[in-house]
């Protein structure tokens, strides 16, 4: 009887002993005998670090690539034996970069792509388009050009394009990795609604978002191509640290309350006693002094407006602000990639050079690492890549060799990387090489734009460690980011930009209020959100953003 029932109602997706190798004869094995199933209406998270084989698994479940061994079944049928249209009408896939998924210039045209491929009539297509746009809360942008949308909106547009195929199951491969906190949260909201309506969702990620855990029913941890662990979300958090994932601060505090029998978070209000922090005052000299800098791309729009700021020698400064607030434009002035239109910049007390050979010296002394710097590697070997900047700066012979070794060691890479091809490395290693290729010119100041974006926790830790060491060596570190966690925890001082202007600048504790006013709560560190919550009950409660400090206060 039971057997009969399970045959009539097979799981939606069944992965049976799937293996996959990129090379011939089992070399480059990405997946090794992976098995699990997903039932209809379930929401499953597949967790894994960079290089665990999770993206390959997503492509196999979506029928994009065939497994080398084993098979994958959808609705009780092997994918390879399914009709193309039937498969594409059942399973939809959303990937990381929305730009690479949107095929048309206008939003509606793009959403219509899948139903057009299914051969529907114009009326049916329009119905599907309207439905998908309303599910993703994009109806008000209906007549927009895709190029006019923000990053988060583009990803929701891409999701609408998938939903318009009227699929039963969504496979999402790191869909929020490139988005800012508010874009991320909106996608999460849409996913929760879809799941409530009965959509099956399989989400592939390297870190569970705190907004989604209540919604996820099953967690599968993938490591080195194999299933390492399976269970419910609650079971997962009990084992998270052993499995190599960090537990969110909010969950740690919540669990502390559960153990002590305190109501979360109000019950914490009277428990916390803040300890006085040691104040270290020191003298400093200005590495950069920005005085009244303004910049505009055309007559109408200012990118920077009357910016006053100083960057102290040997400090770690974070420049924070939303996308479009002028952060990137400001730092590109520091090595004369943008020429000064109005105002002044002093470098070590001297006016910043704007042309000629002095600019090349400036670019050696101030290294700039762009966002996703791994996209800019071009050499055949890591050694050549690391030689590029110091060679341009005039390093020769032994000096050049030692510069290359310096860059390599800063990034914590071993010497056998030197002869390897940058293109053959993993994403995280490529990021390290790209940063090393700027450090090899031994810059006094190093500026990095979103250095942690898209990396898993272990590479994030490596990069943060590297930056702290560079600062301790006496180099000046500037990070540009919308990641408040990193800015508050790691940097000595913060420069806060909003709408092309400086709002405030100072130590994290000094300007925390301004930061909170200028940003949305979803961008705040979880501990800060909790302490803000508690302050609604007890206004004397301190604003704390650091979990260690929070837990110290509780004791």
């Amino acid at each position, binding site marked *: 009887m039971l057997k009969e029932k399970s045959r009539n109602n097979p799981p939606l997706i069944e992965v049976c002993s799937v293996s996959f190798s990129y090379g011939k004869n089992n070399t480059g094995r990405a997946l090794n005998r992976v098995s699990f199933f997903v039932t209809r209406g379930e929401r499953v998270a597949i967790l894994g670090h960079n290089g665990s084989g999770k993206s390959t698994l997503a492509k196999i479940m979506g029928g994009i690539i065939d497994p080398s061994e084993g098979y994958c079944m959808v609705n009780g049928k092997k994918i390879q034996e399914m009709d193309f249209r039937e498969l594409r009408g059942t399973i939809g896939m959303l990937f990381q970069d929305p730009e690479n998924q949107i095929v048309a210039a206008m939003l509606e045209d793009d959403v219509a*792509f899948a139903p057009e491929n299914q051969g529907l009539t114009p009326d049916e297509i329009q119905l599907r388009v309207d439905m998908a746009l309303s599910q993703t809360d994009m109806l008000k942008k209906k007549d927009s050009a895709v190029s006019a949308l923000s990053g988060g909106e583009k990803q929701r547009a891409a999701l609408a394009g998938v939903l318009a195929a009227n699929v039963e199951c969504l496979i999402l491969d790191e869909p929020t990795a490139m988005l800012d906190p508010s874009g991320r949260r909106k996608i999460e909201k849409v996913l929760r609604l879809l799941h409530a309506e009965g959509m099956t969702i399989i989400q592939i990620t390297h870190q569970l978002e705190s907004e989604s855990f209540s919604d996820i029913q099953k967690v599968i941890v993938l490591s080195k191509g194999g299933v390492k662990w399976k269970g419910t979300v609650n079971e997962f958090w009990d084992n998270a640290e052993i499995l190599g994932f960090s537990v969110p601060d909010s969950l740690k505090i919540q669990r502390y309350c559960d153990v002590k029998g305190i109501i979360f978070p109000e019950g914490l209000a009277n428990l916390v006693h803040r300890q006085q922090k040691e104040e270290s005052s020191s003298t400093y000299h200005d590495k950069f002094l920005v005085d009244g800098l303004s910049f505009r791309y055309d007559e109408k729009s200012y990118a920077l407006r009357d910016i006053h700021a100083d960057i102290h020698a040997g400090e770690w400064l974070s420049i924070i602000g939303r996308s479009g607030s002028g952060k990137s434009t400001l730092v590109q002035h520091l090595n004369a990639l943008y020429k000064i239109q109005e105002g002044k910049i002093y470098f070590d007390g001297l006016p910043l050079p704007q042309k000629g050979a002095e600019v090349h010296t400036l670019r050696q002394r101030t290294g700039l690492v762009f966002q996703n710097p791994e*996209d800019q590697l071009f050499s055949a070997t890591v050694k050549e890549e690391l030689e590029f900047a110091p060679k341009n700066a005039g390093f020769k012979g032994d000096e050049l060799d030692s510069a290359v070794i310096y860059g390599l060691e800063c990034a914590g890479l071993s010497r056998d990387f030197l002869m390897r091809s940058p293109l053959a490395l993993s994403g995280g290693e490529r990021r390290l090489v790209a940063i090393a290729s700027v450090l090899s010119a031994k810059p006094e100041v190093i500026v990095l734009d979103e250095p942690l974006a898209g990396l898993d926790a272990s590479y994030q830790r490596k990069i943060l460690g590297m930056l702290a060491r560079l600062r301790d060596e006496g180099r000046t570190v500037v990070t540009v980011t919308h990641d408040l966690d990193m800015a508050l925890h790691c940097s000595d001082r913060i420069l806060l930009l909003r709408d092309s202007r400086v709002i405030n600048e100072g130590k994290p504790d000094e300007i925390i209020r301004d930061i909170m006013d200028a940003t949305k709560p979803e961008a705040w560190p979880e501990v800060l959100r909790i302490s803000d919550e508690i302050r609604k009950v007890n206004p004397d409660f301190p604003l704390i953003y650091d979990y260690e400090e929070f837990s110290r206060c509780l004791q």
Partner: protein
Amino acid sequence: MPAMNMNLGQYVPTGSIIHRLDPRAKLFSMLILISAVFPSKTYTGVVICFGVLMMIVSLSKISWRSVIRSAKPVLFLAVFTMIFHVAAGIFRDGDILQSVISGAFMAVRLVILMMFAVMLPLTTSPLELADGLDAIFRPLERFRFPANEVSMMIAMALRFIPLLMEETDKIMRAQLSRGARLDQGNIFQRVKAFMPVLIPLIVIIFRRADEIAVAMEARGYDGGKGRTRRKPLAWRLRDSLVVLMSVTGVGIFFALGL
């Protein structure tokens, strides 16, 4: 966001009458109009061509700035043509004024020609253009010409040009800050110095192409077979009128020897 000064023929949606014309009508009329600008030898002819261009631009509700910006790559060519023409003229018969005038005439014609040409992608979305081309190429399918694939390819190329321009700009900045000297030395040194920009760009193009192909397949694209359209191409009376007007206009233009 970084200034993009090279958005070559990027679609500007305004919903004007020109935008709503059938892409085939636009393509055909554009070819006819260009064929008139190209051989025109008189000032009156050029003035008339410019008048027609002005009419089209104002009907399309697209700002002159976008039109000029789209035609920018050719401005360089026009200046080059003019200098070349002037130099040749002086060398041939020594009349500076006459060669400057005829050089300028040549350059102006070239610019007008380019502006006519960019009006098509400016007023037609890449997908619509692909549909138009698809319909035009369709008869060639009998000779095994992959009409749908080719037109989809052109549409995708148009869609990604602005994005690749942005990538190029970003890579150039990154390499400049690593001390690259992109703007010094003779032509060979410059080509060599451009490698650090070119190689990453090619890698990015291939990776994007790969990811787009996967995303398109995941959305059920399997070539043109059985594909329908949300807005099927519909040839209306106004399309016939536009083509008729272009043909007669250009016919008269030629008959008058302008």
